């Protein structure tokens, strides 16, 4: 047995920081002048309610532009979003969080967080490593524990008339599930919110602050990795440590990058989907009552919540100067790839702006399209279904305590971060 020295070097963090030295663009913040020429996903008028903006752009200027973030484009039609998702020749996944920082070109084709940040052909093999652990059959093994955990969260509400369904329920469920799958101590869960915010929010913060924030996560992962090297066990971390690509073990940054992806993307996305679904039901009593009365409708309703409140927007970088469907794109321009906007395109779906909980045909793109389809989609669907089933069974009567008090995450993963609800437990 060979000694695994990939994580022994003292300078691992320094090498990681150095590897990420990229280019920075000027921070341009403040109210948007015109959404067609100056859009921003970092301003409150976007993240509080992006749908009217997207609907208007789809009619008026379906591929919007901005000088912010060093230049970026926003397609709003389903057909354009899909075409870009499928076009890995012209659009790179080298960076998938749009801000004022672009990682160096030589970080491709792996990118910082494989496989979501990877381009072909590297992408295929890096993704293949993860797929078996995230099939519908594989994630079903987590269902009983997930359900028990949902019940324990609701048990803790006993005696209270008002709870925060985002902070006290939705957030915890994916955190527990992915933390357990990675084999991290449950007592570390409070740290993960900071990691999520560091990775995905505050994108206009100074670059050194952002590097420092994501560095905390890297240091944490290295600590977990070293513990797993000493004490291997049956979890995703040990699996990644022994996994091979092309006959060789993964390098340190691939292992840590993939773990970082699984942790961050495993948490905030599903947290957002559970929260947005409960928010909809809290303000739409007819849908809530119908789902309580017809629990078998939940899998169908859930797809509609995923369509209409799709949490995830991705990003791409333009590979070379190109005129694309009339837009003069420059190399290194961003594409903000809005699956939420695509999902509400009336050319793709009937009654696009309505939440139709018994919609039978629902070809939405909430989990992306093409080679980067969310690797955790089966896990997310299991968690969302169990979280909603358990909530509706235990708390069939609930409503918004104060619509104005609901807050939404800024950035590319959108969901409620504060969701105060008046709750009435089921009479048992």
């Amino acid at each position: 047995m060979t000694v695994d020295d990939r994580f022994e070097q003292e300078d691992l963090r320094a090498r990681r920081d150095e590897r990420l030295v990229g280019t920075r663009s000027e921070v341009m913040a403040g109210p948007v002048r015109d959404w067609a020429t100056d859009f921003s996903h970092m301003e409150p008028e976007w993240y509080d309610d992006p749908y009217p903006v997207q609907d208007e752009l789809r009619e008026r200027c379906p591929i919007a532009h901005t000088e912010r973030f060093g230049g970026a484009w926003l397609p709003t039609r389903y057909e354009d979003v899909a075409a870009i998702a499928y076009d890995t020749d012209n659009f790179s996944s080298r960076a998938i969080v749009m801000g004022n920082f672009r990682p160096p070109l030589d970080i491709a084709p792996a990118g910082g967080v494989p496989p979501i940040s990877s381009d072909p052909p590297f992408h295929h093999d890096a993704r293949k490593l993860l797929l078996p652990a995230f099939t519908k059959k594989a994630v079903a093994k987590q269902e009983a524990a997930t359900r028990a955990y949902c019940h324990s969260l609701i048990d803790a509400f006993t005696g209270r008339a008002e709870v925060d369904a985002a902070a006290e329920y939705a957030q915890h469920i994916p955190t527990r599930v992915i933390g357990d799958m990675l084999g991290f101590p449950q007592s570390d869960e409070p740290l993960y919110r900071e990691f999520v915010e560091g990775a995905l929010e505050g994108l206009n913060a100074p670059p050194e602050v952002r590097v420092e924030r994501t560095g905390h996560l890297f240091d944490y992962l290295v600590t977990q990795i070293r513990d797993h090297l000493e004490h291997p066990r049956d979890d995703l971390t040990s699996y990644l440590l022994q996994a091979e690509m092309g006959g060789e073990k993964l390098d340190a940054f691939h292992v840590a990058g993939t773990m970082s992806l699984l942790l961050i993307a495993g948490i905030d996305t599903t947290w957002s989907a559970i929260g947005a679904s409960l928010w909809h039901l809290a303000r739409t009593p007819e849908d809530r009552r119908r789902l309580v009365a017809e629990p078998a409708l939940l899998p169908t309703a859930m797809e509609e919540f995923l369509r209409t409140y799709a949490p995830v927007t991705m990003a791409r970088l333009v590979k070379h100067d190109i005129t694309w469907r009339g837009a003069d794109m420059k190399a290194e321009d961003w594409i903000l790839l809005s699956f939420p906007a695509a999902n509400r395109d009336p050319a793709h779906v009937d009654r696009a702006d309505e939440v139709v909980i018994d919609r039978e045909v629902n070809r939405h793109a909430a989990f992306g399209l093409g080679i980067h389809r969310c690797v955790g989609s089966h896990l997310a669907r299991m968690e969302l279904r169990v979280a909603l089933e358990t909530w509706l069974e235990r708390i069939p009567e609930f409503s918004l305590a104060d619509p104005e008090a609901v807050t939404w995450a800024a950035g590319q993963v959108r969901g409620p971060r504060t969701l105060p609800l008046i709750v009435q437990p089921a009479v048992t």
Partner: protein
Amino acid sequence: MVGTGPVRNSGRWRGQVKVQIDAARCQGHGRCYDLAPEVFGEDDEGYGHVLGDGLVPAALHAQARLGAMNCPESAIDVVEEA
């Protein structure tokens, strides 16, 4: 009974339905085997595949179409064979 044994006597009836998945388009969303578990299955990596030889008995036509129509990648063909 799970319909892994599709209709064998093809050509006996008009309006036979056959399903096929374009493996180059399938990305493993799994909507087909979620919605039509008697027509489609999942492989070890989560990609969909057609159970049996793809000929769908009449009782499962609606299920097969539902699975196909919900494929986000439009990777499933439902072919009506005369």
